[in-house]
């Protein structure tokens, strides 16, 4: 199990605390320092079953600078969104947990973290 976190994010901290409390074996990836490649982001999206715009923090200043709200959200634009996430990792929603069964989820609630643990 791997969890992508930004330590400035309290939901990430809460997720780690819960994983510890549950005795989970996991690896922490600080994605702002160890930035995922486009391929890695694409792979996580496949595991999430989501599109890149679904995990984009559109309220971030960088999103506004890029004008993301005006970007198309369709198959032809998918690569462009993934490139934006790889280039501006602050735009990636967090925390993301990749579960043992090959799936992944955005774990912003305790319930989601427990869901990841049960997979």
């Amino acid at each position, binding site marked *: 199990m791997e969890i992508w976190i930004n*330590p*400035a994010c309290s939901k990430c901290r*809460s997720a*780690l605390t819960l994983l*510890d409390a549950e005795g989970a074996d996991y690896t922490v990836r600080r994605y702002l320092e160890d930035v995922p490649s486009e391929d890695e982001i694409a792979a996580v999206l496949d595991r999430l079953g989501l599109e890149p715009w679904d995990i984009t923090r559109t*309220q971030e*200043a960088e999103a506004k600078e890029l004008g993301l709200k005006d970007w198309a959200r369709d198959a032809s634009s998918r690569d462009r969104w993934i490139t934006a996430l790889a280039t501006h990792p602050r735009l990636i929603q967090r925390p993301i947990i990749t579960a043992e069964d090959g799936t992944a989820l955005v774990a912003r609630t305790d319930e989601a973290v427990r869901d990841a643990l049960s997979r």
Partner: protein
Amino acid sequence: MALGVAVAVGTALIAEEDDGTRPGSAPPATPRGAATASALTAVPSVDPGFPSSAPSRAPGALPSLLARPVIRPEQAFPSTGVRLADGSRYARVDLSTTVDCARDVPPGLARLVDRGEGCSRSTAALFTDTERRSQVTVTVLSFTRVEDASRVFATVSADPVTYRAIALDPPPRAGLPTVPPGSARVLRQAMTLRSVVFADGRWGDGGPARETELRARTEGLLHRVEDTVAAYEEGRT
């Protein structure tokens, strides 16, 4: 102290306000500033007006005081609203705690806190003012041993930029912007009996303007938390 009026902050409400008059906010035994250090970045500097020596207080009751558990989050940050002596008011919009202190701090500070017997608890709170322009994160690192707290404080005071704590990003419910990376910030630190308290103040827009005002806010919140932690650790609450 309960207020009759609740102030909305995003979906968070200031239902309770701490004006520092509680018994738990009694002034520390040591004059303020004796154990406080500071820095302002993005142009890193140390303010010579803030001595960076560790406190010399060593109460005779030290063993019994250290036998108490380290301060808990709800003790360090008892209220969702804070009113300082200058009349300024702040809402606490986030609170985070862990017993794995090294996990939630940058690598340099993580290595530092892991030495000795280590850090027992890290708690961070994010405050904003009523106009929601400033964001100040106050972090309390509490140690089992006084000497570990002193060592960390001395090192942080010598290089507060390298050894700063992490500033919290506001949660979505707070409705505040995430401060852009690389923004100017005011860094302050203080030491109580067994804790090091960090304050990291930034304007929400990341701008460097009104440094004096930002400094006052950052120091005000630092000292409020410092007073609260000191009162607990010195057995006054």
